């Protein structure tokens, strides 16, 4: 049997007391494409970041070619032949594609002092050709579409000539052709003996490309099995660790309900183009699409967070002017951003203050003094109602878990009497158990008559929650699916229906 390139044993890693990896294991053979699967928060990315030197392990060991190694930095990982494509784009927008690819190891010209820009561009050009990618290496990365930025990331990882290449959801922003190109490249790498770790949620992709699959759950190693002979539901069962998901719960029919929000012909720059939709009372509407498709931008435009170039918004059938979040809130529209820490919460303040923050006017006594007792009782009411787990309403929000923080943001908008709630990535950074509770809460809110929009990159989440799904691609709404007819395949089809696919892929 061939010796593994990488062996990971009993690896543990905690962040601020939260155990992200719990004696995880992993084994990678040369020349294989090894899929790493698990729900969000299962520890896949963390495990790979330890291997790539981004995080230091707390305990356990990493063996490279059978010898223990200490990978203390990204640079050390590179030196050992381990390359990684991160899930998030890590590019310097002001620098050109070639400069991004060769950051940290620029070819030197005369005296070893100056950067040989020409050599760098030639080399980048060669990599692009190998990838079948038509791109001027001198273009500033900030001017590229997200899909092409992703290709630059991939080119960068390829340029290392690594023996181990980790790809963390590399296709999140790619269309089918680009994915096919990527898979051809992976095929070539495999035949040269490069070991590829491939993290993805897309089952069909994994079936096409992976040789073996390792499943993780809650930071622990579950099993490693051959991809071809393992049925899909067996993998899912391993990932979820329970009986298969509650067989498609009943979706209420909301098509006859009154329209509470309507957007007509919303345009904003290149990110949102002529987007229209309606949202009904008691409905959960999902926005699906690839990274950079303009879902968040559309929500922000409707919410007044960004100025719109054209289009109009109707609330309960009346045309309204929403020029700022303040206007939107006054019309009962709330927006829960994907980044709770930055935009949703004052994390250094306590639970009750955060809940009351958007409705302070209501808690004034004598016109200018804050009625602390009222704030407290409102806080306590919502803590009870939403099942927020906190020792008291005086607890600082930053000390609570992601799921409880999300509930506090929800409480804040409920107290403000919002009837329309936009949720941008509602379960990002929330562990599996708390996720189910957020889902339950969203369903309850809809049942109470709130209208809800969910923006999520996780297709299973969109499919599970939405009564109706809108799919976006390059700023346009490319299709609408009812819950019954929606499937991952249908959504992906619509999400890659690019108008400009030929002119600027």
């Amino acid at each position: 049997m061939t010796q593994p390139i990488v062996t990971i044993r009993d690896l543990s890693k905690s962040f601020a007391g939260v155990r992200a990896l719990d004696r995880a294991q992993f084994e990678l053979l040369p020349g294989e494409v090894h899929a790493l699967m698990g729900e969000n928060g299962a520890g896949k990315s963390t495990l790979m970041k330890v291997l790539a030197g981004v995080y230091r392990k707390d305990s356990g060991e990493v063996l490279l070619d059978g010898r223990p190694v200490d990978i203390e930095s990204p640079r050390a990982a590179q030196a050992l032949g381990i390359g990684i494509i991160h899930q998030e784009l890590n590019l310097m927008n002001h620098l050109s594609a070639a400069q991004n690819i060769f950051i940290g190891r620029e070819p030197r010209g005369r005296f070893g002092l100056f950067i040989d820009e020409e050599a760098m561009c030639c080399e980048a050009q060669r990599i692009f050709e190998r990838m079948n990618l038509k791109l001027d290496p001198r273009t500033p990365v900030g001017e590229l579409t997200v899909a092409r930025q992703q290709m630059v990331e991939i080119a960068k990882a390829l340029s290392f000539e690594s023996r181990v290449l980790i790809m963390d959801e590399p296709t999140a922003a790619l269309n089918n052709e680009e994915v096919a190109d990527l898979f051809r490249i992976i095929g070539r790498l495999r035949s040269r003996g490069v070991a590829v770790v491939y993290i993805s949620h897309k089952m069909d992709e994994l079936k096409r490309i992976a040789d073996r699959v390792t499943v993780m759950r809650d930071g622990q190693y579950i099993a490693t099995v051959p991809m071809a002979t393992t049925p899909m539901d067996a993998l899912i069962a391993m990932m979820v660790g329970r009986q298969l998901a509650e067989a498609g719960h009943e979706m209420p029919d909301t098509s006859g309900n009154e329209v509470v929000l309507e957007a007509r012909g919303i345009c904003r720059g290149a990110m949102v183009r002529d987007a229209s939709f309606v949202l009904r009372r008691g409905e959960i509407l999902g926005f699906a699409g690839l990274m950079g498709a303009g879902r968040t931008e559309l929500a922000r435009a409707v919410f007044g967070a960004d100025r719109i170039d054209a289009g109009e918004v109707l609330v309960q059938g009346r045309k309204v002017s929403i020029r700022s979040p303040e206007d939107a809130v006054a019309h009962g529209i709330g927006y829960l951003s994907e980044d709770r820490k930055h935009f949703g919460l004052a994390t250094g303040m306590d639970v009750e203050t955060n809940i009351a923050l958007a409705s302070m006017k209501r808690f004034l006594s004598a016109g200018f003094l804050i009625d602390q007792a009222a704030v407290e009782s409102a806080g306590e009411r919502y803590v009870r109602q939403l099942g927020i787990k906190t020792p008291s309403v005086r607890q600082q929000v930053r000390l609570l878990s992601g799921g409880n923080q999300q509930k506090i943001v929800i409480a804040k908008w409920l107290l403000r009497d919002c009837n329309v709630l936009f949720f941008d990535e509602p379960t990002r950074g929330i562990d599996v158990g708390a996720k189910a509770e957020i889902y339950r809460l969203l369903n309850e809110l809809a049942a109470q008559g709130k209208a809800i929009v969910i923006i999520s990159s996780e297709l299973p989440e969109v499919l599970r929650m939405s009564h109706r799904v809108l799919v976006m691609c390059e700023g346009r709404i490319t299709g609408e699916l009812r819950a019954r007819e929606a499937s991952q395949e249908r959504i992906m089809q619509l999400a890659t229906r690019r108008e400009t696919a030929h002119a600027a892929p």
Partner: protein
Amino acid sequence: MTTPTVTTAATAAGFSPKTLKDRLLRPATRQKLLAFASLVALMVFFSFASPQFLQADNLVGILQSTAVNGVLAIACTFVIITSGIDLSVGTLMTFCAVMTGVVLTYMGMPLWLGICAAIFFGALSGFVSGLLIAKLKIPPFIATLGMMMLLKGLSLVISGTKPIYFNDTPGFTAISQDSLIGDIVPSLPIPNAVLILFLVAVAASIVLNRTILGRYTFALGSNEEAVRLSGVNTDFWKIVVYTVSGGICGIAGLLIASRLNSAQPALGQGYELDAIAAVVIGGTSLSGGTGTIVGTIIGAFIMSVLTNGLRILSVAQEWQTVVTGVIIILAVYADILRRRSGSKAR
């Protein structure tokens, strides 16, 4: 994607080099053009408003006074491109002048050692700022605010709050005031200070655009985390940037000491704001990632032409300050407009 087989030559030919028009329309170029146009407009305005403005003496005066602020602004440009800020450049300049005074006047060392001392202490202080920022993770604004006060105090302590004169060092004033160019071409009595500004600018421009240090300077300002994940020792390079910036402040210290033939320990505070203003007027974004030395130099000239012109027109000192303030606000607003249109283009 649609043409799977392309040869290198064909691919290369496929990307026609950007036309001049394309380049002129680039936001960064636009800001530089705007700054340059403003400079020309100001000069035209003042030359019509007062015959005195275009006289050789006055122009030399403008050049002379631009030199110090220009060199300081170049030092700031490096730091600001990394999306940092350096409030200590003014008092650091004075500190370097004082240390030169100590070496030359108090210790009686030869001139070249005095010059080395200025640059050494500048670099050392920049190194300390860099350590505070990169290693102790103190925000640049606070770290350099502390350094600004610390250096001001040190200058006063070391000099005993009295100016140090360079009367015993023949040739010291020549650094700034003589004119090498004038010796060769008598009709061009451009003072050495300006020559030095020019040389520093050329060197800084080469460093920024052609060397690893320059590349990392831009990269740090563009996306520090991405640079770190690329395996670059970001802490090290940040310290290098602040150190180089400090060394350049040392040169400014030499220029001002030579011009005044003395190290004035109470001087310096306020210079950092002029320098930062010049950088910003020149189109370097305070949010990092972009900027040019040419822009900074234009910015420095706008500042000194404005001051000089208003003085010639006998505008009261107080009002000069008001005008400068307005100009800085306009320049920053232009930067915001530029970035907004830039992000829309995406």
